[in-house]
């Protein structure tokens, strides 16, 4: 699904990512944890093409139409990223050079970035915004646009599933939403846009316990499928109680310094980053 090789990226001429490599296969959920300033958000922004995040070296290949080769029986976690590299799940589909695409092309290819701080857009209703986005993506993929009715049906189902009422969906994007509502709205957007790969940047920050559960269930419902993958960027183990990762990586100093299974997250929580990132 996603293959990052030796990625270097600068923000305002300051190197932040310094040789990051990571492979994510279809059907997998990866969590990236790490101390403040390690480059976690930079990774999400760089992969989604935010202006000002300048790639200076490395490559990223995205294979949106890959499917996990065989169903996995029970949790069988590989502990090194070497294993996953040896089992490429590109059974179908063409790999695209992600970094050569504009942000909207990356979205149309199937990439979704869940924002740590979702942006407020006064004057633009959620439904108008999302219908335009979905149809813009469909157009780029050569698919027919959805009618208002078809779109509303999808939007209603996704909003219902996240416990968000339609009235809220008609309100301007994120304006006056609480922190938790914004994150729910990100999940509604993800459900409607139905991406292949979701990069979720601290989707758990600012959530109370109930909202955390709802958002966690949303991630599982929308993204835990053989033809999808998730990269969770988080500071805390608590989201991983709801969304079981297949792999956990520690990002420090702009590189992945350690990878492991879900137990690594617990270890981090116990020991702190200093010990492991050292």
């Amino acid at each position: 699904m996603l293959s990052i090789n030796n990625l270097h990226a600068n923000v305002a001429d300051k190197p932040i990512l310094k040789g990051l490599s990571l492979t994510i296969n279809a059907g997998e959920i990866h969590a990236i944890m790490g101390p403040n300033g390690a480059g976690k958000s930079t990774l999400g922004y760089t992969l989604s093409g935010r202006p000002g995040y300048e790639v200076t070296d490395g490559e990223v290949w995205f294979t949106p139409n890959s499917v996990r080769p065989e169903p996995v029986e029970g949790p069988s976690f590989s502990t090194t990223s070497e294993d996953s590299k040896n089992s490429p799940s590109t059974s179908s589909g063409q790999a695209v050079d992600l970094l050569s695409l504009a942000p909207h092309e990356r979205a149309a290819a199937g990439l979704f970035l869940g924002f740590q701080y979702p942006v407020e857009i006064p004057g633009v209703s959620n439904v108008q915004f999302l219908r335009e986005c979905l149809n813009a993506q469909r157009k780029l993929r050569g698919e027919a646009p959805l009618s208002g009715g078809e779109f509303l049906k999808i939007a209603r189902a996704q909003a219902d599933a996240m416990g968000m009422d339609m009235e809220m969906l008609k309100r301007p994007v994120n304006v006056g939403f609480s922190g938790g509502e914004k994150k729910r709205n990100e999940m509604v957007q993800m459900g409607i846009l139905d991406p292949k790969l979701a990069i979720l940047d601290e989707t758990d920050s600012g959530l109370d316990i109930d909202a955390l559960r709802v958002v966690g269930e949303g991630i599982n419902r929308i993204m835990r499928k053989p033809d999808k993958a998730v990269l969770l960027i988080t500071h805390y183990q608590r989201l991983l109680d709801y969304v079981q990762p297949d792999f956990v990586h520690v990002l420090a100093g702009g590189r992945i310094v350690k990878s492991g299974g879900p137990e690594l997250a617990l270890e981090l929580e116990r020991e702190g980053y200093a010990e492991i990132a050292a």
Partner: protein
Amino acid sequence: MSLPLPTRRDEAWRYADLDAVARLWPLAAPESITVPAGGSFSRAIVQDAGGVHQIEMHLGKGARAALHILNIGGDYGRIELNVTLNEGADFTLGAAQIGSDAQTLEIITNVTHAEPGATSRQVVRSVLGGHATGTYLGKVAVARGAQQTDSEQSVKAMLLDRTATANAKPELEIFADDVKCAHGCAIGELDPMSLFYLQSRGLTPPAAKTLLLQAFVASVFEGADEEEALQDAALQKLGELV
């Protein structure tokens, strides 16, 4: 005809020096609109051909008037409003001007609260790209004794290019001591983070800009008789800018 159109070289020209546009003369006499006591009036104006348009309005006691204006056409498009409010009258202006290339667009208002208890509310939004200049010069005058005047001016401009110019000058001239006169003014650029957010959801850069600009101007036409036509005309012009 060698006289240039008003430029940003000279501060005074920006607003009101009509000698600079003498080639547009002679002007027709200002249109005169009188709304009788207790009456109401509304109109939508799309200025799409340039020139100077002058309107004088007189609102009688308790009369209400609403003007919605889209100022988009011509090298030079100027709309001048002179409004006089009698006791308890209510005046609303919702205006957008959208300029590209070397257009000069101006909205000049002079609202006089001649008697007590009148209200006026002016909302003006400008979107300017290329080398366009957009100006709002709005004076609210409160006559001696026009107590309980309630007036509001909200002026915002969005610059799409560093070569575009926005001028905004709300003015107050108050000769009464029990009045509420609010004015606010802001000139800015599209927020890069908002643009990126929209693009990350699949909108092309022009579509993302258009959506943000549409939202920026849309509020001025809310409640207009021909709201949809105004919004459509604004959207079309915005599409030419991004």
